[in-house]
């Protein structure tokens, strides 16, 4: 239980974030964004870092979650929990249905198919103008106050941050539990030696399907929160550029560690926020970050401290 102390410290810092973040020039919505991206990247890391499946199209499920939530609020019912539920189901079911198409592929081909499949949803959202708002994105919806019986919780920026923190905590606990379970151990075994696992009679593709679907559900869940945070979602939320950003955030933090993606997200989102206020050429700097991390820090920030991990 020697890990319990740092985790408690991190969590305490997150609870207190609305007080200390403005002191160093941040704002509460930035904290919400970091936690939302952390949910998405940590779930993607179940697939990428723990199972070894190079998914490069995860933004599709993130965006589907966002559109699901936004369209629920706009067309169906003014209910935040319902929006989160429907968005999560939309992205998760899409991932579950597409899983069989990718579960047998390895390495480079897995990556290529996930990239290409992701673009399908991008074009659906861009071209289905009347419903999705096309290129301009889906606007005209707002997160609604939460009604718990007689109790009404208004979702101000501050309260929404705490809702996100609650969701983050639940999602992290779930993912932690999954990795401790036999299922999680099978994922790691697939990463380490898939062929050997198959010789042992394990149908590894079913486990890849499972992790693809689970990562899809949790990423879509994060996507719904993202749409609610900005009361807006756009095709950029399911573009392959965002998929690539998710992957680099994971590698930046350290893809072999459970909390690595959280660290990567903090560094990346803050850097992006800062760079885009500083220069119009921030895309070049993000690109340079990619190149430098790949060439110099392939194990990520946490990997620097952990000598056991090797670059495969």
């Amino acid at each position, binding site marked *: 239980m020697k890990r319990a102390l740092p985790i408690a410290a991190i969590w305490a810092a997150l609870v207190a974030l609305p007080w200390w973040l403005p002191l160093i020039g941040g704002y509460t919505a930035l904290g919400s964004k970091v936690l939302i991206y952390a949910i998405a990247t940590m779930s993607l890391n179940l697939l*990428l870092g723990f199972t070894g499946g*190079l998914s*490069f199209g995860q933004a599709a499920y993130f965006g589907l979650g966002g559109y699901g939530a936004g369209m629920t609020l706009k067309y169906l019912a003014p209910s935040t929990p319902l929006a989160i539920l429907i968005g999560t189901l939309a992205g998760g079911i899409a991932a579950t249905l*597409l899983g069989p*198409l990718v579960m*047998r*592929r390895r*390495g*480079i*081909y897995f*990556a*290529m*198919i996930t*990239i*290409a*499949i992701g*673009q*399908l949803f991008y*074009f*659906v959202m*861009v*071209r*289905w*103008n009347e419903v999705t708002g096309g290129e301009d994105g889906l606007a005209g919806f707002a997160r609604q106050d939460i009604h718990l019986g007689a109790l009404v919780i208004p979702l101000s920026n501050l309260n929404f941050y705490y809702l996100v923190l609650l969701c983050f905590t639940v999602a992290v606990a779930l993912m932690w539990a999954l990795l401790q379970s036999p299922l999680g151990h099978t994922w790691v075994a697939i990463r380490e030696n898939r062929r050997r696992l198959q010789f042992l009679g394990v149908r590894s593709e079913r486990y890849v399907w499972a992790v693809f679907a689970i990562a899809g559900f949790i990423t879509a869940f994060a996507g719904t929160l993202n749409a609610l945070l900005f009361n807006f979602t756009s095709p950029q939320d399911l573009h*392959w*550029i965002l998929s*690539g950003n998710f*992957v*680099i955030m994971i*590698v930046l933090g350290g893809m072999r560690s459970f909390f690595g993606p959280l660290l990567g997200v903090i560094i990346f989102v803050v850097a992006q926020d800062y760079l885009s206020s500083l220069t119009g*050429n921030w*895309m*070049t700097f*993000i*690109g*340079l*970050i*990619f*190149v430098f*991390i*790949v*060439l110099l820090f*392939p194990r990520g920030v946490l990997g620097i401290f952990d000598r056991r991990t090797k*670059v*495969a």
Partner: protein
Amino acid sequence: MQLLLFNAFNGLIQGVFYALMALGLALILSLNSVINMAHGGFLVIGAYLAFTLNPYLGFWGALVAGPVLAAAIGLAVERGLIRPLYKRSDPLYSLLLTFGLALIIEDMTRTIWGAQGLPLEVPDIINSPVSDTYFFITGYRLFVIGITAAAAIGLYLLLRYTLLGVRIRAGTRDLETTAALGVNIYRLRALNFGFGCLFAGLAGVLAAGILGLTPPMGNSLIMPSFVAIIIGGVGSLFGAVLGGLIIGLAAGIVTTYYPAASEAVIYLMMLIVLVVRPRGLFGEEGLFE
């Protein structure tokens, strides 16, 4: 009927660009084991350099210089950035690196040449319509088809009949054995990467003559090229070309009846192929399953 022909022909031209892109991507994918996300970047480099050199070299000179310079930059990138990654067996890193390059190239293009679209002047001799009824069949479009066919046949002859081609094909099958037989596989992979970028640059110059130049043009052509490879079958260059033509044609035909679905249709076709024939139309068995 006229409209259908018009759109189908437009789609075919689009498909020619996909095919050229897919050809280069497939070359690099099979021998270098790199998903070259920066392939669109090399297309843009070829196109913009041709645009810049056009006033000095004329269209014909630029048509040669653009792709050659794109290939030269590709060689430098391979030597400096991609070669260090070959020893890492995880394809993640080369994918991320070329992804970063794609962002850098698009942004730098915007900074150097501006975000506005630019036209590439095409000589009048080849730019006039061939007939009045079929006004959309301009000489330039036939020229594009001709050049692409020549390039594809040239590549085929190179791979089939030259020592270099034999080595590239051997390296694709079994890199270790090829190296053990005394082939310098580093040079082989570098050349192969250069060839891939040459095709990207060629696609860029040819596309610029029809679509004009914009910084994101490469990144919008790259995804359909992936689809072309998946549909045609990984490991088959012929499949990549055919896949590109098929999806271009399909997108063109769908434009006639239901324009909003013209992009989505190619991804739907890919899903159908993946369900019915996972290795693609001409893919090698086992490589992809």
